[in-house]
């Protein structure tokens, strides 16, 4: 891998003499993430490769595709949204499949560390407001410059989720209740259609002791209601036990909204709540999907199986949202 990467890097990084420390970080069969260092007379340059190896074409279903991801990161970076700089978009002569190389941003993505470690103590009170500003930056990107993306509405999202849930053929009365609530409370198409990150939460945010350093993983980016991102980041599943701090377990909605509005954009709190309920159900349906993949394959791991048993967490959260017991 280092040899192939080295040849590629030599063609686009002036002065590069090779590549070292290449490690595969994660990914399934169709997508890989690698970390490596570019050897350069001025010192090592940390880099990340995101790619689909040869033989894996367009990303399935909801994914925006690696080319779109690279373009979105570039646009975000240029607009001042914390984002890794895209260094190179893979071309056929690179012999690396499709994808891109970006600068490696140092920091933490693991929620439990961000919420508990002393080193982030000063950052935590700032994060919700910062995320508001970051979301506003994402939603403010000019739609005319964006790559081709799916256009989503609440009704479409709901229909997709319901189809997936029905496909599991396993009765979940609480999910049924949530589906009814969502259908009854659909706020209709948003007046304003913007870029939506689509997975704006812990795990896709690099945090340093100074706060948010980068937004990652634009795989689920689409056009739609900007309030979707604000609702998703409030889903209880991303609070990691800090349930009284709705934004990622570190802040309040008020702080998130204040950061968003200070950047010149308007919050519609009712829509945000709608998307929080939608997001809670969506994570629940995703947990059920993990169970399917465990049972049917290709991933028979214990981890997948156990995520299947986390769907009930979203059921209690849906009940807390839709039928609170008055405590």
């Amino acid at each position, binding site marked *: 891998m280092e040899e192939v990467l080295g040849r590629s890097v030599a063609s686009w990084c002036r002065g590069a003499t090779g590549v070292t420390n290449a490690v595969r970080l994660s990914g399934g069969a169709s997508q890989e993430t690698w970390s490596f260092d570019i050897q350069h007379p001025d010192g090592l340059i940390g880099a990340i490769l995101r790619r689909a190896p040869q033989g894996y074409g367009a990303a399935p279903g909801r994914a925006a595709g690696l080319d779109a991801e690279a373009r979105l990161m570039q646009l975000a970076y240029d607009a001042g949204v914390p984002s890794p700089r895209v260094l190179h978009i893979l071309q056929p002569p690179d012999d690396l499949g499709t994808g891109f190389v970006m600068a490696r941003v140092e920091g933490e993505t693991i929620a439990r560390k961000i919420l508990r470690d002393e080193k982030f103590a000063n950052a935590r009170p700032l994060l919700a407001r910062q995320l508001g500003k970051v979301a506003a930056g994402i939603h403010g990107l000019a739609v005319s410059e964006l790559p081709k993306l799916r256009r989503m509405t609440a009704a479409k999202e709901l229909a997709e989720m319901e189809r997936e849930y029905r496909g599991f053929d396993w*009765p*979940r009365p609480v999910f*049924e209740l949530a589906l*009814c609530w969502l259908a009854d409370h659909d706020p209709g198409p948003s007046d304003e259609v913007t870029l939506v990150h689509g997975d704006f939460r812990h795990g896709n945010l690099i945090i340093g002791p100074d706060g948010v350093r980068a937004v990652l993983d634009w795989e689920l980016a689409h056009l739609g209601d900007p309030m979707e991102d604000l609702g998703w980041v409030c889903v209880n599943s991303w609070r990691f036990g800090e349930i009284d701090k709705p934004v990622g377990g570190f802040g309040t909605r008020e702080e998130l909204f204040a950061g968003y509005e200070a950047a010149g954009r308007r919050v519609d709190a009712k829509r945000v709540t709608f998307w929080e309920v939608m997001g809670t159900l969506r994570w629940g349906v995703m947990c059920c999907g993990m169970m399917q993949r465990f049972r049917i394959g290709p991933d028979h791991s214990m981890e997948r199986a156990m995520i299947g*048993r986390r769907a*009930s*967490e979203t*059921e209690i959260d849906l009940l807390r949202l*839709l*039928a609170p017991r008055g405590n």
Partner: protein
Amino acid sequence: MQDEPTPEELTKAVADFLRNDITPQISGHHAFKLRVAINVLDLVTRQLKLEQGSDAAELARLSKLLSMPGSLGELNRVLADQIAKGELDLQTPGLAEHLWQTTMDKLAVDQPNYASHKRELEAKGD
């Protein structure tokens, strides 16, 4: 009738062995996998202990709520269907209580330490 020890006692014995004797000897990715494995066994142990009681209570509630006999699986399908059709909703007497109790019983097996579950337990003392 099968002999003792019970499945619950057996899974607990294995989980305790892995937790106390093997965990200190393992590191890296296998340590992570081992933690997951212990969590699996703990979940199964809880289910073996609690399932019979919670299933019986759920079946009794469902039969009353839907005014019909049936198995747990059948009645849950009927309930899901009636909620989807709008024939039952949160105004229906007993529905919210039923869903809450059923969900609390699931969490007691799946993830008793989930913060929302602990909060609801404290609030209601159940």
